[in-house]
């Protein structure tokens, strides 16, 4: 019974992890059809911001929930102005340029922070579930993810900004007909997506520790979660995060973490072969 509880919590944590790290990428992809391959490094930057601030004596919750999204959001704005805006509509070129950006950021962070791992202790102590020792911080991550998804859903569904965003998903013409400049909407979207990536990095930093190359661990998972989910931001990300989370953790419990990850990646290939438009291209077509 305790074991079932452990498995359930681990599965929930994995789903939350996937949804949280994919949210920024999903928003940018869903609205702008831009794949940001530097997404993993945006997450990493959020993590480094949090750890650097926490070491400088700033309250860690303030650092991860406010400062990390702020710093990465501003960085995203700079990137959009300098690189992305010249490449709208050229999907492959955007992928290449952002891949270059990802290498550049890895190199820069290595220069600044060195190539050894940095970490900060998790601010929430562990607890016991029957005879198992559990990390209390995982629960915090699950809670943050649930709040984030609810906030996104509320914003997209019930606010003026959400209406414009949903218009942007259908195409730049729709935004223009609502009376807004699509370019400006894209700029704000990319900044918001970057800020979300920063939040994810900040929240995850105490749990995972960080290396300059940590971004690579996020990008592949976020990438397949978003592409497999399809164009609808919330239902797509949630459905594919749930699917991959369950598969990854159940296989990991049976056959070890490496086989778990391989199973997840293999499943992604099969799903893309069967549904190239993603899960939401076939099901929940009118979702957000």
């Amino acid at each position, binding site marked *: 019974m305790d074991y079932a509880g452990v498995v359930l919590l681990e599965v929930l944590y994995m789903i939350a992890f996937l949804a949280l790290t994919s949210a920024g990428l999903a928003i940018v992809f869903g609205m702008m059809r831009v*794949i940001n391959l530097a997404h993993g490094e945006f997450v990493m930057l959020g993590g480094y911001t949090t750890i650097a601030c926490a070491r400088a004596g700033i309250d860690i919750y303030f650092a991860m929930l406010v400062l990390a999204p702020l710093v990465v959001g501003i960085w995203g704005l700079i990137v959009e102005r300098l*690189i992305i805006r*010249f*490449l709208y509509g050229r*999907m*492959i*070129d955007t*992928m*290449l*340029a952002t*891949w*270059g*950006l*990802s*290498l*550049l*950021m*890895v*190199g*820069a962070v*290595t*220069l600044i922070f060195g190539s050894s791992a940095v970490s900060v202790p998790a601010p929430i102590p562990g607890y016991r579930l029957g005879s198992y020792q559990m990390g209390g911080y995982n629960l915090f991550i699950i809670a943050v993810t649930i709040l984030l998804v609810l906030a996104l859903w509320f914003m997209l569904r019930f606010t003026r900004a959400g209406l414009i965003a949903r218009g942007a998903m259908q195409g730049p013409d729709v935004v223009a007909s609502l009376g807004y400049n699509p370019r400006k909407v894209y700029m704000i979207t990319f900044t918001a997506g970057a800020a979300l990536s920063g939040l994810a990095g900040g929240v995850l930093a105490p749990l995972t520790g960080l290396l300059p190359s940590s971004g*690579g661990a996020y990008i*592949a998972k976020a*990438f*397949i979660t978003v*592409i497999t989910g399809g164009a609808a931001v919330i239902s797509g990300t949630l459905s594919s995060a749930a699917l991959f989370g369950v598969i990854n953790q159940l296989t990991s419990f049976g056959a*070890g973490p*490496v*086989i778990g*990850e*391989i199973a997840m*990646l*293999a499943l*992604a*290939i099969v799903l*893309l*072969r069967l549904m*190239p438009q993603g899960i939401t291209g076939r099901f929940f077509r009118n979702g957000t």
Partner: protein
Amino acid sequence: MTGWRSIGRVQWGWFVAAAAVLALLPLAFDTHTATVLLIWALFAMSLGLMWGFAGLLSFGHSAYFGLGAYAYAISSVNMGESTIPLVLAVLVPALFAAVVGAMMFYGRISDVYMGVITLVVTLILFKFMSATAGDAYRIGDARLGGFNGIPGFPTLNLPGFPEISLYGVPPYYVCAASLLLCYLLSRWILARSFGRVLVGIRENEARCELMGYDVALYKTGIFTISAGMAGLAGCLFANWAEIVTPGLFALGQAAEVLIWVIAGGLGTLIGPILGAMALGMVKLLLGQQTLIDNSLVLGAILIVVVLAIPRGVVPTVQRAWGWRTRTRRGRAKAASARRRLGGSPGESA
């Protein structure tokens, strides 16, 4: 018009000059360095062939490079000689690519989705190979060795004489010959109707399909050929490094070859070759110092190329050159020359 004649019309002079330079290079340049530059050039050309001419971008071409290296290492440990392993190093990646390619192209997967799948394939290989430490993972006498890879396999020997192994200058000539032969093979493929249809698919896939060509078959074909060449490059690299590690499959390797190709120039064969050699040299020089990180420079190059010269250096230079000669000779003459050559600007070099 046969393939050979149309290869022969333009390039033989340059080709012989390049071969002569390669033949004499060991006199002037460190052979060890020159060898690895040629290997990288071959790897880049294999990607340039399918990306530049068929418009198929594999984000994880390192998968086939690594498979070639591993196929060679595993089979040479088991056989104790290098001739059959060399053949296997081409066949294994080619067959693997044929399966992956058929799955993608007959499923009408293209663009971003092809990018995801090729990337995920190389990630799977990377994760799997990294996790093969211990005695349980062995193929015949070869232990896969997990993250440490396979060291100490027999390197290239004279075909038929396992006791006479090649080291020093001869492997350099093997690499030079491989590059030149693969270049000729690629030129020949591109001059055949197979190559013409590939360029047609790049330009307008729907039209080619409506003309009755089996587009998926052509795409799978070029993917297979390209993977075989990448496998050969991987095998030569294994011989150069004398060890194979999962790092061959890593994303960094995949990104690097992509940067070489796009910086050198899409739609040419010489572009990727020169791009790989020049940027490979930069990488080796940067590796000798610790002040500036290698990936910082590579990343900056990739961004600048995509933003400023998205077609790459060689086609941009060619276009500038073509423009100058055209204005000198007058437009009508250039137009008639283009008609006579019957090629698009993207096909020269």
